[in-house]
């Protein structure tokens, strides 16, 4: 009985903790857009963040996309045991999987790790070394100075996902041809079958939401972290977990709203 009571109280505390974090996160997002930093400074910060967050991630995005596209094509081909199923289905399945899920969602989970941990650790280190306090004492809105350029830079994230979509399908084509699962013509025919342009729009809408989550959730964990260098590492891990959870929940909700 006592154990049950303890567990109930504990779960209530955990729930209240989550609610408080969501509240603090919302307040932080509101503050980010207040008291803007001078444009001449902000412009340089945005360009720097585009370089760090987007351009710096293109290598891993390209690598992942080609191989994921290839694996999807191989898996589809190997599971097509019925000779009545047309071979162009490989191209069709690769396109649908890559555009709808693998390029926007899978890549975003990887980016939550790569970009998210960079954001949390860089802001967290600034917190630990009092650089954020220094900005505040000077009268700078540190939330705007640190997080706003990241949000704007991440608006360019859909361009990276467009590249991921193209290369994913290309990877599928290469794997398909190299594995001799179907001809190039059949694969390309499959890519063109029943193409619904809204699926690309849906994908980009998702990508923009994920971009906002990838910019803000790791920033929240870095900005409000307490402790020393070890805690910066812990905050990076926590931020990756919560960014991934948020992306998966947002993916479900958006899919239901836009395609359901």
């Amino acid at each position, binding site marked *: 009985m006592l154990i049950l009571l303890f567990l109930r109280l504990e779960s209530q505390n955990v729930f209240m903790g989550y609610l408080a974090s969501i509240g603090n996160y919302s307040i932080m997002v509101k503050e980010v857009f207040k*008291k803007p*930093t*001078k444009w*001449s*400074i902000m412009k340089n910060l945005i360009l720097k963040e585009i370089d760090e967050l987007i351009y710096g991630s293109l290598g891993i995005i390209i690598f992942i996309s080609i191989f994921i596209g290839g694996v999807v094509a191989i898996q589809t081909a190997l599971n097509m045991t019925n000779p009545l199923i047309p071979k162009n289905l490989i191209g069709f399945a690769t396109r649908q999987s890559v555009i709808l899920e693998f390029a926007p969602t899978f890549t975003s989970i990887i980016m939550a790790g790569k970009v998210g941990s960079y954001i949390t650790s860089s802001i967290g*280190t600034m917190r630990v*070394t*009092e*650089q954020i*306090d*220094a900005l*505040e*004492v*000077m*009268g*700078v809105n540190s939330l705007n100075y640190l997080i706003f350029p990241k949000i704007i830079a991440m608006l360019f994230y859909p361009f990276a996902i467009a590249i991921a979509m193209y290369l994913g399908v290309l990877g599928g084509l290469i794997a398909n041809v190299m594995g001799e699962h179907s001809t190039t013509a059949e694969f390309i025919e499959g890519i063109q079958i029943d193409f619904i342009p809204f699926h690309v729009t849906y994908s980009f809408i998702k990508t923009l939401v994920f971009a906002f989550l990838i910019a803000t959730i790791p920033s929240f964990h870095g900005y409000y972290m307490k402790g020393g260098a070890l805690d910066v590492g812990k905050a990076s891990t926590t931020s990756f977990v919560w960014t991934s959870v948020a992306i998966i929940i947002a993916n479900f909700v958006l899919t239901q709203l836009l395609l359901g």
Partner: protein
Amino acid sequence: MIEVNNLHKSFGETHVLKGITTSFEKGKTNLIIGQSGSGKTVFLKCLLGLLIPDEGEIIYDGRFLSKLSITDKRDLRQEIGMVFQGSALFDSMTVEENVMFPLDMFTKQAKSEMEDRVNEVLMRVNLEEAKDKFPSEISGGMQKRVAIARAIVMKPKYLFCDEPNSGLDPKTAILIDNLIQELTQENDIITVINSHDMNSVMEIGEKIVFLKNGLKEWEGTNKEIFKTDNKAVTDFVYSSELFKKVRQMYIEERN
């Protein structure tokens, strides 16, 4: 003048500041001293507006900190220079960019004007040769001097320093102390230093506020600290044999 009236601050059930009343005058180096956990850092953060006191008032030349609008607070903060314990320099910027940062952020000066001012303050702290280096490429003492240069570049009316000597060798520590005192007198500013360093207390403590368990236990000058009979102060200041002997010699000399 900065006036502090009956300042209280708690964190949960821990009452850190228990009603501190004091004042800091223009052109003087004011030192806040006390053991670790006595409330020095919380007191300094309240003065800077980084923490909001639960009770009491902080008055900057007639301006009540708690009653200032956001815009007025922003204006006041531009009159404040702060030297952090770990220097708090921006890692991604060079020494020159660090010092130029407040000018770039808050003034409409032309690039050449800003560069002139930066060169002027870097020369004042003897760091003109390090201006293209990054904070990680210079020593701790040099980092402190860059932090001082950044704090004074906007010609502040109020200068706050949180343990400016921590981690420095005695010779560099004296250099930093003297630099802060000279800048205070040259620019007729109010300087408040949070310190553990007894050399600083003796050298530049024109006014000393001793905190103990969140209360102001004693205040006076570096001359008066030799004569005080307050046991808490003497236990703290003269904890080392060297300072005990210095005090003894001072008392014998006076007699």
